[in-house]
C-alpha cells in the first residue's frame, strides 16, 4: 500500500473511532448524568441580595433531588433518573455577553438545559437565541411581560409570573386595604421610582394602569422617577418625590439599588411621609433587620420569601429549614424562584420519561412541561399562558413590621391575590385586558 493511501485510511479510521467514541459517551452520559447551566448574578450589585441566594436555592434543591432526599412530590431520585451536574455561571455583564455565554453553554459545553436569569434585559436577549439554538431554557426570575406577549417561544419556559400581576396586586392592595374608606377626594395620589429598563418601566406602567381601574379618581404624578440601573445615589430623586404631592410611591427597585434607596430615604423621614409599596424589596428587610422601616407594603413576587417563611406546608418547612441549616440565612424570594425552576424541570423530565418509557429526548421534556401544573412550596403553579410556556401564580403583599419579641422582621395584614384576579386570560395582551376593565377576573 502506498504511503498516501495508508495515511488516508488511517485518518478515516481515527475519525470513525472518534465519532463512535463521542456517540457512545454521549448516549451513556444522557442516561446517567445531565449537564445544566444555572445562570444568576454572582458578582455586581445584584449578586449579594439576589444572585447568590438564587444560586443557593437551586443548589440546595438540585443536591436534594440528586440524592432523593427532597419531600414529595420531588422525592424520586434524579431527573428522569439522571444525576444533574449544574454549571453555575455569572449573569453580570449585560445582554451581549450573556448571549455569547449562552451560545458557549449550548454549542461547546453541550448542556442539556439552561435554568435561571434574573434580569429582564437578559431574558429578552436570551429568549430568541434559546429558540434559535433549540435549547430547553427555564427562566426563573425575570419579569417583563414582553417576553411572551411579543412572541410565543418554542423552547423557553418561565416559572415566574410576569410583572403584570406584581403591579396589579400592588395597586389592588392599596385600593382595597390602604384606602378603604379613607380616600375622600380625588387628586394627585401616586408616583413611582423604578429602574430605567424593561422591568422598571413595565412595572410602573402596569401599576399605573391598575390604579386607573381600581381607583379611577386617583391621579398619577407627571414626574415618576426612572433612575438608571445601579445608580446608587438617589438623593435628588428622593427630594423630587418628597416635593411631589402624591402620597403613594411605587417601586420595583431590586438588588443593591433598593437597599441604597431605603438607607438614603430612611434618614430623610421619607417612609413617614409617604406610603411606599415595593414589589420586590424583601431582601433589604432581612439585611437591614430592625433598621428597616415599618409600614412598607411589601411584595415578594409570588408566595415565596419573606411573605411565606412561616407557612407550614411540608415542602416549605423542609426548604426553609434546610436552607437555614446550610447557608445560615433565610431563603429569599430568588432562592425560591430558582428552586422552583429546578423542580419544574425535574417534574417535566420524570413525566416525559414515564410517558416515553425511556430517558426522554428534549422534545419530549418540552411537551411534558407545556401546560404542566406543578406543586410549588406553598401553592400550585400552572404553565397556562404564553402557549403553555408562561407560568402564573398567586401574588401576596403585606406590611412590614419588626417583631421585637422574636427579634425578626415580618409582615402583617398579608393578602394573597389569585392568578385569575391579576393576570389576563390566555392569549390576551395584558395592556388590552386592563384597559378593557379586566373582564372575567376572579378575585374571590
Amino acid at each position, binding site marked *: 500500500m502506498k504511503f498516501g493511501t495508508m495515511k488516508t485510511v488511517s485518518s478515516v479510521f481515527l475519525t470513525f473511532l472518534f465519532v463512535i467514541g463521542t456517540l457512545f459517551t454521549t448516549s451513556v452520559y444522557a442516561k446517567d448524568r445531565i449537564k445544566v447551566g444555572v445562570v444568576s448574578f454572582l458578582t455586581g450589585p445584584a449578586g449579594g441580595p439576589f444572585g447568590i441566594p438564587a444560586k443557593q436555592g437551586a443548589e440546595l434543591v438540585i443536591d436534594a433531588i440528586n440524592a432523593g432526599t427532597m419531600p414529595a412530590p420531588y422525592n424520586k431520585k434524579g431527573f428522569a433518573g439522571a444525576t444533574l451536574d449544574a454549571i453555575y455561571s455569572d449573569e453580570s455583564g449585560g445582554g451581549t455577553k450573556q448571549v455569547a455565554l449562552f451560545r458557549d453553554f449550548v454549542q461547546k459545553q453541550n448542556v442539556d438545559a439552561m435554568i435561571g436569569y434574573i434580569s429582564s434585559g437578559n431574558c429578552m436577549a436570551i429568549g430568541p437565541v434559546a429558540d434559535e439554538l433549540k435549547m430547553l431554557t427555564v427562566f426563573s426570575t425575570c419579569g417583563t411581560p414582553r417576553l411572551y406577549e411579543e412572541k410565543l417561544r418554542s423552547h423557553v419556559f418561565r416559572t415566574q409570573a410576569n410583572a403584570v400581576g406584581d403591579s396589579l396586586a400592588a395597586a389592588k392592595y392599596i385600593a382595597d386595604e390602604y384606602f378603604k374608606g379613607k380616600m375622600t377626594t380625588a387628586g394627585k395620589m401616586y408616583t413611582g421610582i423604578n429602574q430605567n429598563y424593561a422591568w422598571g418601566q413595565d412595572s410602573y406602567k402596569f401599576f399605573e394602569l391598575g390604579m386607573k381601574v381600581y381607583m379611577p379618581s386617583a391621579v398619577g404624578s407627571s414626574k*415618576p422617577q426612572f433612575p438608571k440601573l445601579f445608580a446608587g445615589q438617589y438623593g435628588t430623586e428622593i*427630594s423630587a418625590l418628597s416635593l411631589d404631592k402624591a402620597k403613594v410611591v411605587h417601586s420595583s427597585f431590586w438588588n443593591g439599588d433598593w437597599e441604597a434607596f431605603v*438607607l438614603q430615604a430612611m434618614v430623610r423621614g421619607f417612609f413617614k411621609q409617604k406610603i411606599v409599596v415595593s414589589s420586590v424589596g424583601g431582601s433589604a428587610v432581612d*439585611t437591614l433587620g430592625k433598621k428597616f422601616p415599618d409600614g412598607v407594603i411589601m411584595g415578594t413576587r409570588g408566595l415565596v420569601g419573606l411573605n411565606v417563611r412561616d407557612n407550614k406546608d411540608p415542602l416549605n418547612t423542609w426548604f426553609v429549614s434546610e436552607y437555614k441549616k446550610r447557608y445560615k440565612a433565610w431563603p429569599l424570594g430568588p432562592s425560591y424562584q430558582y428552586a422552583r425552576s429546578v423542580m419544574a424541570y425535574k417534574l417535566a423530565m420524570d413525566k416525559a420519561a414515564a410517558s416515553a418509557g425511556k430517558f426522554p429526548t428534549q422534545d419530549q421534556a418540552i411537551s411534558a412541561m407545556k401546560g404542566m401544573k406543578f406543586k410549588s412550596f406553598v401553592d400550585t403553579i400552572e404553565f397556562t399562558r404564553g402557549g403553555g410556556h408562561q407560568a402564573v401564580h398567586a401574588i401576596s403583599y403585606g406590611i412590614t413590621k419588626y417583631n421585637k419579641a422574636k427579634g425578626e422582621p415580618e409582615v402583617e395584614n398579608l393578602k394573597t391575590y389569585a392568578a385569575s384576579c391579576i393576570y389576563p386570560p390566555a392569549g390576551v395582551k395584558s395592556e388590552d385586558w386592563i384597559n378593557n376593565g379586566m373582564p372575567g377576573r376572579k378575585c374571590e
Partner: protein
Amino acid sequence: MQFLTTVLLDGLVYASYLFIVSLGLTITFGVMKILNVAHGSFYAWGAYLASIAIIYLGENEYNSMFYYFSIFMAAIVAGLFFGFIIERFILRKMYGEDIHLIVLATFGIFWILEDLILIVFGADPLMPYYPAMELGGLEIAGVYQGVYSLTLSGLAVVVAFICWYFLKKTKWGKLLQSVIFDREVSVSMGINVTNVYLITFIIGGMLGALGGAYVAPTISISPGFAIDVVVMSFAVVVIGGMGSVPGALIGSLMVGMIRAFAVHQAPVLELFIIYAVMAIVLIIKPQGLFAPPKPRKI
C-alpha cells in the same frame, strides 16, 4: 423658593460627591498623562475598608468619632497600599509606552482589583449605615435632607481648599505644576519626576478612596458598584478639562446642578442630559473648559 432651594441643595451634594471622586482622576492625568481606569478600584477599596471598620465600630457601639477616623484611615490605607504597588511595579515599567497600552493596563488592574474584592469580601452587600443614621435628617425649605449627605459638601470644600493651598502655596505644589506644564524641562531642572509621579498617583488614589469611604454609609456596598462611578468621573473630567483642578470643580458643579434640575423637572432626561452637556462642551471646546495650556515645543 422651596423648589429652587431643594434643587440647589441636591445639585450641591451630588456635585461634591463627583468632585471628590473626579479630583484624583484629574490630578493623576494632569501630572502623569495617564487615564487611570483603575481609579474606580480605589473608590471601591476605600468603601469596603471603611465599611468593614464602621460596621465593626457600630456593632460594638464605639464613639461615633471613630467612624470618621476610620473613613479617613480607609482612604489613606487604600490609596497608599494600592497606589504604591500599581505605580511602582506596573505603571513605572510602562512610561514611554503608547498611551493606549497604559490605559489598557489600568483597565486590567481595575478588573483584577474588582475580583480581589470578591475574593476578600465576598458578594454579600455591606451596609455601614451607622454614621448616616446617627446624624439623621434636617428640614430645609420644607424638605428633609440627610445631614450626613450634606456634610459631603463640607468635605468637598475642605478638599478643594487643601488642594488649592498645596498647589499654590507649597514648594511641592509648585514642583507638581512644573511637571504638569513640562515633564522634560522639569527633569532638566533637577526635579525628581519619578518621585513626583509616585506621590501624585498615591494622592490621586487616596482621593478616589476617600470618595468611596465617605459615601459608603449611604449606599449598599457590593462588588461592581464602582463601575458607574468611573464613567461619571470621566464625564466630569472631560467637561472640566483633563488635568485641571478648577475644571473638575466646575465640571462637577455643572453636572450636579443640571442633573438635579433634570431629575426634578424632566426625570426621563436625567442621564441623557449629562452626556449631552459633555458633547456640547466637547464640540465648542474639545480640550474641555479649563484644560491646562500645552507648551509649544521647538
